[in-house]
């Protein structure tokens, strides 16, 4: 199973939105997808048109408790950030063995420790950032090997892009220069995104012409090929796991 880690340096950037739509795109490409959120307060169900009363099962819960939306098995494990063995558990359960399955992980920005632990196991890590000063100012720390969450497999997606705003435009251009090929997509700010949530509908159904929907699909096309590559752990010790 390929692990796709979604984690941002900053909260509220659209990490969950992007994780949900990457999962949807991967399912459309024929993958067997599990989408796991590790947030204690989880808004994931909303992105699948599910009401707020929806309780997602834990990662290990049996198939009888599964919540499946658009073919994606949705799960929530709020204990993961405090569990030092979570990454090892993933491996032990065989979730990271080769296969056609994809595990998309939505890790909240504050759970940096968990994201760092998962990074070596991830085939791809997508950091969703608005083109805003805070995103820029956090970038050096986020790239710092000792403190941040950045590897060979990390890429950035700009979200909530509004090119009618001068500073946003300049910041996006600057990020483009800075990140080069590591910037794999940009998703425009689009009111249809929160409106779809409020309508308890999929974005694709609520606003098929949504700019953000088209953008996030393009982002998925850029990210999907990354899942074919070996993880950082596999590169360092070929055929052996990162976690001894």
């Amino acid at each position, binding site marked *: 199973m390929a692990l796709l880690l979604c984690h941002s340096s900053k909260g509220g950037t659209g990490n969950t939105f992007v994780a949900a739509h990457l999962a949807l795109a991967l399912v459309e490409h024929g993958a067997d997808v599990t989408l796991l959120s590790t947030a204690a307060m989880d808004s994931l169900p909303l992105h699948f048109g599910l009401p707020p009363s929806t309780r997602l099962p834990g990662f290990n819960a049996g198939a009888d408790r599964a919540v499946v939306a658009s073919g994606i098995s949705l799960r929530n494990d709020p204990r993961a950030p405090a569990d030092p063995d979570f990454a090892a558990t993933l491996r032990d359960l065989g979730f990271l063995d080769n296969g056609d399955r994809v595990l998309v992980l939505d890790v909240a920005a504050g759970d940096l420790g968990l994201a760092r632990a998962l990074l070596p196991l991830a085939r791809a890590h997508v950091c969703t950032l608005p083109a805003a000063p805070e995103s820029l100012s956090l970038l050096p720390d986020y790239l710092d090997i000792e403190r941040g969450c950045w*590897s060979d497999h990390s890429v950035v997606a700009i979200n909530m892009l509004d090119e009618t705003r001068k500073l946003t435009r300049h910041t996006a251009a600057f990020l483009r220069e800075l990140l080069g*090929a590591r910037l794999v997509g940009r998703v425009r700010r689009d009111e249809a995104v929160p409106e779809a949530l409020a309508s308890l509908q999929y974005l694709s159904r609520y606003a098929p012409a949504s700019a953000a929907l088209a953008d996030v699909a393009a982002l998925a096309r850029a990210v999907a090929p990354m899942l074919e590559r070996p993880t950082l752990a596999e590169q360092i010790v070929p055929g052996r796991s990162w976690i001894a």
Partner: protein
Amino acid sequence: MRVDAKALLDRLGKSDFTYREFADRFSELELWPLFEALLRDTRLAQLEEGAEPGHGIVAGAVAASAGAPGREPAHQPFAALFSRYEGDGGAGSGSAARAAEPEPTPHELPPQDVRMLLRQLSELQRKGEL
């Protein structure tokens, strides 16, 4: 999105509504002091060295996690970007003054650097990456 705008776009099947008229006006691009501060941060050097995801960073990551010394402090990342700040009196000399102003005005690019940047931007736009 307003309901009428949404209905119209849906009817047109237009999935690529974009603000092209704004995206074109990059001639007014300014380099803000925050940008300058970032270009002086050596930790961003790895972005330049491993521009392509999947290449170049692994060795650095392993070396650093094994306790190898960091990059030489003399290393100046993003020489091309950085050069736009040259002739500005050095790092932060203007920043303090600007910070005291009620509304800090960002730098204007020197003309030839604007042209260089515009060339890059139009190239990106040509490739559909903008």
